[in-house]
């Protein structure tokens, strides 16, 4: 098919918007840590922009979207972008240049790896994080992306729906975050119950605001075209984010005070939950999805520290659990009236869809948790995962990067 320039216009900007989400995430995470780790936390996301950005074009795209090998992984036909040209691919996004589809998918790979870093801030060795990222990207992200989105991927064939990355991005990142955090152990200050309040809440809000904006490209762009479906995904995204933000605000009001952190965390949770569903459901159904995700994630976030697990920025509670709820909700609310390429869900008379969703969820939970554990163990053996206690107490900005956020030598 020839390139459709309207679809391409929307995919161009969507791709740029998803790129912007990684710096936004850097600030969202960066504001949540203590000042002495502000730069190092930002750095974790920015390093992914470089590292995963390069790996994706070299071999990531072909592993995820290359010619299917047994439903499990892609072949090497797109290695180094061979055969990825200005004309559309035969199988993916038939109206936009193949290379643009490739770049769009690359932005997802980058942010997925960056998401995990929220679990390990304030104590991981930067070199270990880089090695981990390469391995995780190669051994977890590319196969999972292939299973769900690759032509011939086994989960796709099974019928599990994931519009924009509820399983591939959010569950995979959230569960891996949990696994890696368990391996790494809690921060010393977490153990000693030192005060660890967020260092810069305005930056968290800034990051959240830009994430919200970028997510329209993330979900709306996953229609891979401009028009009704993109609009449907876009509107559902907006409604879920608003509903979840409002819900979280109310819950936090009941238990404590209506906090800005609550509103922005709620918004992000709402965005996560709608991700797998956005292009398959009626937009108004995003209200129950958004309310549900805030209820679920709020209590997960309250619960988590009580278990003694220092999954520091709650990637698991928000992305892992939020993505899980979203994938389930997709199986409840999806409807072919919205998207003929989709399926009907439980509430539209097709209960089996929920089963496929659960299979998809379970697969990614198990695979991501296990593989992350193995990769983490390996990295720990080879170069060690954690910084020294002294480096941790000084902060990673200085100890890992030799920099300070403000004014150089002083704080």
């Amino acid at each position: 098919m020839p390139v459709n320039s309207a679809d391409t216009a929307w995919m161009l900007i969507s791709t740029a918007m998803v790129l912007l989400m990684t710096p936004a995430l850097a600030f969202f995470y960066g504001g949540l840590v203590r000042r002495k780790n502000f730069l190092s936390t930002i750095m974790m996301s920015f390093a992914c922009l470089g590292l995963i950005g390069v790996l994706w074009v070299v071999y990531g795209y072909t592993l995820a979207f290359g010619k299917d090998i047994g439903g499990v992984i892609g072949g090497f036909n797109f290695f180094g972008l061979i055969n990825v040209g200005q004309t559309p691919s035969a199988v993916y996004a038939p109206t936009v240049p193949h290379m643009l589809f490739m770049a769009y998918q690359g932005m997802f790979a980058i942010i997925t790896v960056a998401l995990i870093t929220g679990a390990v801030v304030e104590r991981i060795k930067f070199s270990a994080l880089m090695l981990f990222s390469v391995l995780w990207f190669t051994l977890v992200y590319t196969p999972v992306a292939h299973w769900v989105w690759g032509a011939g991927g086994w989960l796709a064939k099974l019928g599990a729906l994931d519009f924009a990355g509820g399983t591939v991005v959010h569950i995979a990142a959230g569960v891996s975050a949990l696994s890696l955090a368990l391996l790494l152990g809690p921060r010393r200050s977490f153990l000693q119950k030192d005060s660890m309040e967020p260092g810069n809440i305005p930056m968290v809000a800034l990051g959240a605001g830009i994430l919200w904006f970028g997510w329209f490209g993330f979900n709306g762009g996953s229609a891979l075209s401009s028009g009704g479906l993109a609009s449907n995904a876009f509107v559902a995204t907006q409604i879920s984010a608003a509903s979840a933000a409002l819900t979280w605000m109310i819950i936090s009001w009941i238990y404590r005070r209506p906090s800005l952190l609550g509103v922005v965390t709620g918004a992000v949770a709402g965005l996560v939950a709608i991700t797998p569903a956005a292009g398959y459901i009626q937009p108004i159904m995003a209200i129950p999805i958004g309310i549900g995700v805030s209820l679920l994630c709020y209590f997960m976030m309250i619960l988590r520290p009580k278990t003694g697990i220092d999954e520091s920025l709650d990637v698991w509670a928000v992305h892992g659990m939020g993505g899980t709820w979203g994938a389930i909700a997709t199986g409840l609310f999806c409807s072919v009236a919205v998207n003929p390429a989709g399926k009907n869900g439980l509430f539209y008379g097709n209960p089996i869809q929920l089963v496929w969703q659960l299979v998809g969820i379970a697969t990614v939970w198990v695979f991501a948790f296990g593989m992350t554990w193995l990769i983490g163990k390996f990295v720990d053996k080879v170069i060690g995962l954690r910084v020294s206690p002294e480096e941790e107490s000084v902060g990673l900005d200085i100890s890992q990067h030799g920099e300070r956020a403000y004014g150089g030598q002083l704080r």
Partner: protein
Amino acid sequence: MKKIEAIIREEKLDHVKRSLEDLGYFGMTITEVSGRGKQKGIALKWGGKENRVDFLPKLKVEVVVMDDDLPPALNAIIKSARTGEIGDGKIFVTSIEDAIRIRTGDNGNSAV
């Protein structure tokens, strides 16, 4: 009256605060400072050679107490701020000639 100036680790503020409260000392003033001690900061290896990062962020806790309260207050701070590792900080004690509560204009011990 004495002024206790304790330079402590940032993370220890909560502990110090609570241990002082337990003894009934509520008043205090906190300043964000940067400091280094005899060890010249912290040594980190970069690019093959050792580099020193001096000036680590600390908090300065100032507590003014009556003369008799000095030993218990000092003890409370020392205990709650200690980790046993380098960088735990220092305490300096000075003499205060007068203290005044602005709201009432009271001065002397009653103002502390």
